[in-house]
């Protein structure tokens, strides 16, 4: 195939012409966009930066100012980030947070995926729990109904995904199984879970589960919410994975079997790597949704990031600056979700490299 000659490098003016003013309607849209930007940006800048109160300041100073009151964040950020975790001990959730972020960072490298990484995660999670709970090694015991804020939101997501994802693969395979019992069970599970909102699952896990347990036995509240999150997201992930599985041509299964690979070998080595690569956008979509949905655990009185912020601004002195609080955690949510989205794009190109069909 003869490659088209490389286009000459365009100057800025030519670029503007080609992309923004290529025809009459594009020109109108460009001008309209510019107009809206000009109208919206300066007031936003005035509010958020120019007239805002930065650093430590009295609420009265904020009241007098016409801009945002970032002093509120300065005053309350530890409450927002770590919830009701004992103030003096908050270095522990901070360290735990750093640990999680480092582990997530390490896991982003595709070459690191493997048994070693799984073991490292096991160790990291154990260390995290130890750090948060304490009660050993001179750390005071902190019951987990005091855990909250960003560490809680992150751990619910991380453990949720780490367990739900493998589970969803089995569900997706089960749904396509040739054995009717397995197929029907998986199908019923997926349909049932998808048919109810996460909120009701959380409620059920929180209030109904104990009714079925013998008296005296109780399951930890955080664990209950965690289980509900896992069960919920596994059903959705299973459908995303199944979508990927369906995209794999029959010939791949046949070739694998003709080469003597067993069912599980064929799935593991041939089918799943391709299916999951196809399903990455859908899977990450669910990951992002799940991360935000963890804020629903607030209804079973767990203090996630969102609830921690709302509790922080319950302080009468600062109550009027709730917008700043929402902006602050919106930024945190956005950064994490944007990272996931970018990472999924990176993964897609990685998986695609070399294997144009």
């Amino acid at each position, binding site marked *: 195939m003869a490659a088209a000659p490389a286009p000459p490098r365009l100057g800025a003016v030519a670029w503007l012409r080609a992309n923004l003013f290529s025809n009459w309607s594009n020109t109108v849209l460009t001008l309209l966009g510019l107009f809206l930007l000009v109208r919206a940006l300066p007031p936003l800048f005035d509010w958020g930066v120019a007239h805002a109160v930065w650093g430590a300041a009295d609420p009265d100073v904020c009241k007098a100012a016409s801009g945002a009151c970032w002093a509120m964040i300065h005053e309350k950020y530890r409450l927002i980030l770590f919830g009701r975790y004992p103030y003096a001990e908050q270095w522990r959730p901070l360290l735990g947070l750093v640990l999680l972020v480092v582990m997530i960072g390490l896991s982003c490298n595709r070459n690191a995926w493997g048994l070693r990484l799984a073991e490292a995660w096991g160790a990291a999670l154990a260390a995290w729990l130890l750090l948060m709970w304490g009660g050993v090694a001179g750390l005071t015991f902190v019951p987990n109904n005091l855990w909250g804020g960003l560490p809680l939101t992150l751990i619910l997501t991380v453990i949720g995904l780490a367990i739900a994802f493998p589970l969803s693969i089995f569900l997706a395979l089960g749904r396509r199984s040739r054995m009717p019992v397995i197929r029907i069970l998986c199908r019923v599970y997926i349909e049932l879970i998808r048919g109810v909102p996460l909120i009701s699952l959380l409620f059920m896990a929180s209030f109904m589960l104990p009714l079925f347990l013998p008296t005296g036995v109780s399951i930890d509240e955080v664990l209950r919410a965690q289980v509900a999150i896992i069960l919920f997201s596994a059903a959705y992930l299973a459908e995303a994975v199944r979508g990927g599985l369906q995209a794999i041509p029959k010939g791949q299964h046949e070739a694998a079997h003709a*080469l003597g690979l067993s069912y599980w070998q064929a799935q593991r080595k041939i089918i799943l790597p391709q299916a999951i690569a196809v399903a990455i956008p859908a899977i990450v979509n669910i990951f992002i949704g799940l991360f935000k949905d963890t804020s629903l655990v607030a209804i079973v009185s767990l203090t996630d990031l969102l609830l921690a912020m709302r509790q922080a601004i319950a302080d009468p002195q600062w109550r009027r600056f709730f917008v700043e609080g929402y902006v602050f955690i919106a930024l945190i949510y956005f950064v994490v979700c944007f990272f996931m989205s970018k990472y999924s794009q990176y993964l897609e190109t990685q998986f695609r490299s070399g294997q144009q*069909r």
Partner: protein
Amino acid sequence: MAASAASAGTMVHMQGLHKWYGQLHVLNDINMDVARGERVVICGPSGSGKSTLIRCINRLEEHQQGRLTVDGVELTNDLKNIDAVRREVGMVFQHFNLFPHLTVLENCTLSPIWVRGRPRRDAEELAMQYLERVRIPEQAGKYPGQLSGGQQQRVAIARSLCMQPNIMLFDEPTSALDPETISEVLDVMIDLAESGMTMLCVTHEMGFARQVANRVVFMDAGEIIEASPPEMFFNHPQSERTRLFLSQILSH
């Protein structure tokens, strides 16, 4: 009949084989023995059941009646037997069916490593040997998507050979290829035939059939109509249907 089935020289033994897809009788009383080292070419009009027949041999399709024995192992629902047969039978598909997410070398070593339990080093050496034999050792590091159709099909052949099978099945291996690359695949197949491999090939390459086949089998509507050595098959076809088929295919 029974005596010949038991004899050590029989690689494939089919006796009264039947298969249906719903109402459609795709295999109708197939009786055929293939001896060790024999090369059988199967031809016939589209939909006559050629693919179904050879896919029964490694159980990609299931027969519903009759007996099918491969290298002394009878194919039943017994998974152990099926696995044993698949380890000894290689298959080459019309559309190659290479694994696009693995390199050429990985395509070739996968099964020896995971099914045969060979050490990786060993498997790679073997794979390079076979890639040389199909004359593309220099493509070992590439992905299938980067190769031409003819190259991909040769990789597929090498991939099957890496399992060191006793029998090779080919299902129209050249039908999806450009005319100018057909010969590079046929050359590899001729080479393989000369090495004494037992081969069953579904193909319409009559030149290939004349050159390497011990026997040409003509199928129509799920039945074996005629089976004879090539010179007999092409020069003195016994049945009217065979003559009609040959006149159609040779006039192209």
